[in-house]
């Protein structure tokens, strides 16, 4: 087993290094890529911390919606939404998918789900 720091702590350090030290030092044609790399390191840090619980909650929500414990409940749901004609199920799916996507965004882009307009 690896000693500390944990993956999340290392990724946070990498994100800080890229964003605060490397980005100002690179030539302009590399700046966007370095900015993206810093952003991804921060995203992976959140994924390392939040990902396991987010995955469990997603699986619980999707299994409750589709009514079976599938290996890939997302694929089962997508297939049902493509093949069935059931407006009531689609409405219930919308509720669940809002919750699932909100969880996803807590990793990929915190704050994005605060806006509920169109």
């Amino acid at each position, binding site marked *: 087993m690896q000693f500390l720091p944990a993956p999340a702590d290392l990724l946070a350090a990498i994100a800080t290094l890229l964003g605060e030290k490397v980005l100002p030092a690179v030539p302009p044609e590399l700046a966007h890529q370095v900015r993206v790399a810093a952003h991804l390191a921060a995203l992976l840090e959140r994924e390392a911390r939040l990902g396991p619980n987010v995955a469990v909650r997603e699986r619980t929500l*999707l299994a409750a919606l589709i009514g079976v414990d599938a290996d890939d409940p997302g694929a089962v749901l997508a297939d049902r939404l*493509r093949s069935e004609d059931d407006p009531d199920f689609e409405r219930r799916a919308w509720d669940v998918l*809002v919750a699932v996507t909100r969880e996803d965004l807590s990793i990929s882009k915190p704050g994005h789900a605060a806006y509920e307009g169109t």
Partner: protein
Amino acid sequence: MSTAKVGEIDLATGLAAYLGEAWETHVAVFDLSMTTAGARRHNIVFAAAADGEVRRLVATIVPDGETMLNSIEAEAGVRAVAEAAGVAVPHVHLSREDGALVGGPLMISDFVAGETVPRRVLRLVAERGNGELVAHQLGASLALLHGIDPAATGLSLRTLEVPGPATEAALASLAAAVDELALARPVLALGLRWLERHLPPAPSGPTIVHTDVRNGNLIVGDDGLRAVLDWEGALASGDPMQDVAWPALRMWRFREDGKEIGGFAGRAPYVAGYEAAGGTFDEERFEWWKVEGTLRWAVGLATQAMAFLDGRVPSIVMAASGRRISELEWDLLMLIRPAPTASKTSPSDSVAPGD
């Protein structure tokens, strides 16, 4: 970056030769500056002196071998037609498919000063307080474009790959793309179902559409909208609401979420501009194309991620695209929100684990 060469090509000499031929006089080219150096297109700002006059111009060069949606001459042609109809575009001086002296197909147009980078555009608009003006001008520009009769232009612009109405063609291509995703995405499947259920009637006839008018493809100055850029994807058989909806997607607002039209302003001045210039705004179709555009962009991000994974485009930017899909999924869900029932009016009320 200041340069006079792309690879081993002396751009100043090539540009001067082509301009001299077009203007039928001796032309000197100098002060070249590469504004973008992407793999797909080079944009070079330069000065050209002829007959005692110096002009600031922009050369757009498509490196030989690059895929193009339209030929450079068709792109230059639609810009000229749009300009004649009153749309603000940089005037095109020449276009050549055989731009051997500069390394590929070439177009030269006037340099138009102003901001193009979206966040800078929004800062400028905030400082000048002209967001509603820009939205109005944008709406008017689209109406002027959509008022052009495609059959009367003689342009050889691209048309839809699938025959039939633009709405149905878009739906068919999206359905194929969603079904082929490497990982199933139920939100995209739900969005597709919504598009099928809400498919509007066919548009009244084919319309020339730009397909990518939005904050980021505009030049904006103190006086408002100065030019619409990037006509490479123009299509001769579109639905006008496709163009009208595109700049209204959340992803083009750059954190100004409450201002639907490009972060400039709400919908009212934009629609007013569109209608004042002769357009007919169709809200049902507009909403349909907003959903279509959001779903299409999500699929596009997935495509970019796959291009990274299979090694075609080994760019970290392409890799990051795959992790942006949930943003588009959220936007899509908000757009297709079911009509309120007695118990549910907001996603804040939606299910949570343990419900």
